[in-house]
C-alpha cells in the first residue's frame, strides 16, 4: 500500500526517462514511433494506392514493388503501410474503451466493496474463464463481420483485466490516511472518490493501458484473420495474412503483413518490459498480473 501513496507519482516522473535508456526500451520506443508516424502521414508515404488493382499479379518483391504484389496486383508494401491506419487506431480505441468500462467498474468495486465488489469480480471471473479468442469469436460472429464489431467483441473480453487492476489499486488507496481524512472533513464518498482516489489511480492504469496496445493489435488482427473483422478490400494485416493462405506460393503476401503485426506488438512489449523494470527494479515483476498471484 505504501508504494501507492505519494512516492508513486514521483517515481513515474523520475523513472520513465531512465527506462527508455535500456536498449530494448529504446528500440521499442523508436519502432512504436515509426509506426505511429506511418499511420499519421498515411498517403504521403504510399508509393501506390492500396486498393488499385493491376495486371502485375502475384509478383515477387522487386525494385518497383518492394514487398511484391498480391492476387489482385495491389502493391503489398503500400498495403502494409496502409494497414497501420486500420489496426493501430482501432487497437487504441479498444484499449481506451476497455479502460473506461473496466476502470469505472473497478473503481466502483474497489470503493464500495461488499456486493458491488462481489458482483463485478464474479463477472470478471466468468469472462476470464473463457479463452479470449473463442468468446470474441462468438460475439464477432453474432454481430456480423466488421472492424468495429471486432472491437466490440474484443471489448467484451478485455475490460475485466482493467477492472481488476483498478480495483486492486483502489483497495490499496482506500485505507490511506488522507482518504480516511476526507471522511473526517465531511466529504461525500463521491467527492472523496473524485478528489483523492481517481487521480491516484489514473496514472498507473493509463500507463498499463498504453502498453496493452500491442496485445490489442494481436487480438484484433487475429479476429480479422478469422474473417470476423476487416472485410475486403480493406488493407488490414490479419486479413492480408488470411488471403496469403490461398496463395501459398506467394510467400511475400503473408510474410510482410505478419512482420508488421510482429513489430508493432514487439515495440509495445519492449517498452512495457523496460518500464516495469524501472518502476519495480527489485523484481521486474509483472504489474498488471499482480492479481493472479
Amino acid at each position: 500500500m505504501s508504494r501507492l501513496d505519494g512516492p508513486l507519482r514521483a517515481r513515474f516522473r523520475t523513472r520513465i526517462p531512465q527506462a527508455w535508456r535500456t536498449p530494448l526500451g529504446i528500440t521499442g520506443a523508436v519502432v512504436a514511433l515509426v509506426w505511429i508516424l506511418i499511420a499519421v502521414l498515411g498517403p504521403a508515404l504510399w508509393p501506390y494506392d492500396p486498393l488499385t488493382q493491376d495486371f502485375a499479379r502475384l509478383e515477387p518483391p522487386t525494385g518497383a514493388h518492394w514487398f511484391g504484389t498480391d492476387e489482385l496486383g495491389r502493391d503489398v508494401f503500400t498495403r502494409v503501410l496502409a494497414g497501420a491506419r486500420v489496426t493501430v487506431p482501432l487497437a487504441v480505441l479498444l484499449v481506451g474503451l476497455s479502460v473506461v468500462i473496466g476502470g469505472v467498474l473497478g473503481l466502483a468495486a474497489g470503493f464500495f466493496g461488499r456486493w458491488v465488489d462481489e458482483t463485478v469480480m464474479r463477472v470478471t471471473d466468468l469472462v476470464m474463464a473463457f479463452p479470449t479468442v473463442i468468446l470474441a469469436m462468438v460475439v464477432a460472429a453474432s454481430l456480423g463481420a466488421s472492424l468495429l464489431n471486432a472491437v466490440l467483441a474484443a471489448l467484451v473480453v478485455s475490460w475485466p483485466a482493467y477492472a481488476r487492476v483498478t480495483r486492486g489499486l483502489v483497495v490499496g488507496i482506500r485505507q490511506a490516511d488522507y482518504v480516511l481524512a476526507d471522511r473526517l472533513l465531511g466529504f461525500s464518498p463521491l467527492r472523496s472518490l473524485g478528489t483523492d482516489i481517481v487521480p491516484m489511480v489514473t496514472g498507473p492504469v493509463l500507463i498499463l493501458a498504453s502498453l496493452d496496445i500491442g496485445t490489442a493489435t494481436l487480438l484484433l488482427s487475429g479476429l480479422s484473420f478469422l474473417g470476423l473483422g476487416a472485410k475486403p478490400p480493406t488493407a488490414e494485416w490479419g486479413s492480408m495474412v488470411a488471403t496469403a493462405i490461398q496463395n501459398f506460393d506467394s510467400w511475400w503476401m503473408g510474410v510482410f503483413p505478419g512482420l508488421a503485426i510482429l513489430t508493432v506488438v514487439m515495440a509495445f512489449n519492449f517498452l512495457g518490459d523496460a518500464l516495469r523494470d524501472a518502476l519495480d527494479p527489485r523484481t521486474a515483476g509483472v504489474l498488471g498480473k499482480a492479481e493472479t498471484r
Partner: protein
Amino acid sequence: MVSSPLVRYLLRRLGVSALLIVGVTLVTFVLTNLVPGDPVAANLGQRAAENAETVAAYRAHYGLDRPLPVQYATYLGNLLQGDLGESQQTHRPVLVDLQSAVPATLEIAIGAIVLSVLIGVGFGVVAAVRRGRLADSALRLVSLVGISVPTFWLALVAFYVFSFQLDLAPGSGRLAPATTPPPHVTGLYTLDALLAGEWETFGDALAHLMLPTLVLTLYTVGLLTRFTRSAVLEVLEQDYVRSARAKGLPGRTVLFRYVLRAAMVPILTVVGLAFGALLSGTVLVEEIFSWPGVGSYAYQAASHLDLPAVMGVGLFVGIVYLVINLIVDLLYGAIDPRVRVT
C-alpha cells in the same frame, strides 16, 4: 458424516464449479441471443430462408420458436441428462462432435504445455540466476519475441518453410491421407497407435503433431519465462535464502530446495493461465493446419451462429478451466504446507 477436510473441500469446490458452469452457459446463451445475428439466415440457404414454412419448421425443430427463458431452461434440463443438443451445422449431437474434436485439440495442447513448462521454467530460472548478464538479456529477448508473434502468422510461415519448402514436416491434418486412424481408445492418435502396436501410424501422427505443437509452444514459453524469472527473483531476495547461503549450503541446494520450491506457487498459477491461452491459440493454429479440433469446431460453430455447438465448446472450455484451477489449488497444498487444507 463426511469427516475428511479434503473431501469436504473438494465437495465445496465442486459445488462452486457447478455454479460457474451454469454461469458459463448463461453468458454464452445471453451473448449469442442478445446480438442481432439470426441463426436461420446463417444456416438456411437464401431460398429456404424466404420460405416461411421452412423457416417455421426449422425454428420448431431447434426450439427457436419458444421464449428465450424456456429455451434456456430446456437446455439446462437436457444438459443434466448429458444431452448437449444437436448441432445445426453438422446435424449430429454436439456431444458426438466434441468427442472427436476434443482429443485432437488435447493432443496438441498437452504436448505444448509440457514442452512450454520444461523450456519456459528452465529459461526463467536461468534468467533469474544470471540476472543482468548476457544470458538474461538473450532470454528476455526470446521471451518478449515469443509473446509478440501472431500465432496464426507463425503457423503459416512454419508450414510454408518446413512443410512446403524443406519437406521436413508432413502436410496438414492429423495423419497422411492414406493412413487409417488407429482403433479408437482414447482418441489421441499417438497413444491409440501405440496401444495397437501400429508403429508406422504412431510415427505419422507424431510427425503431424510436431509443427502445430511447436508453434503453440513459443508463446507459452515466452509467458512462462517472464513469470518464472520474476517469481524466482522475488524469492532470491528473501532473508532465508541469504541465511541458507550464509551457512554454506551449496548453490544448487539453495536453488532447488529453497528457491524453486517457494517460487513454484506463482509459477503454477501462471501455468494454469497459460493452458487457457493455449486453448485460445489453438483456434488460430488449427485453421492453418486443418486440424479437426475444438478450435476449428468453435470457429465453424461461431461463424454459423450454431448455438448448441457454441454452448458445447463454451462448456468444454469452462470445465477445462475449472479442472485446471482445482489441480493448481491442490498442488499449492502439496508444495506449500501453509495453504494445505487441514
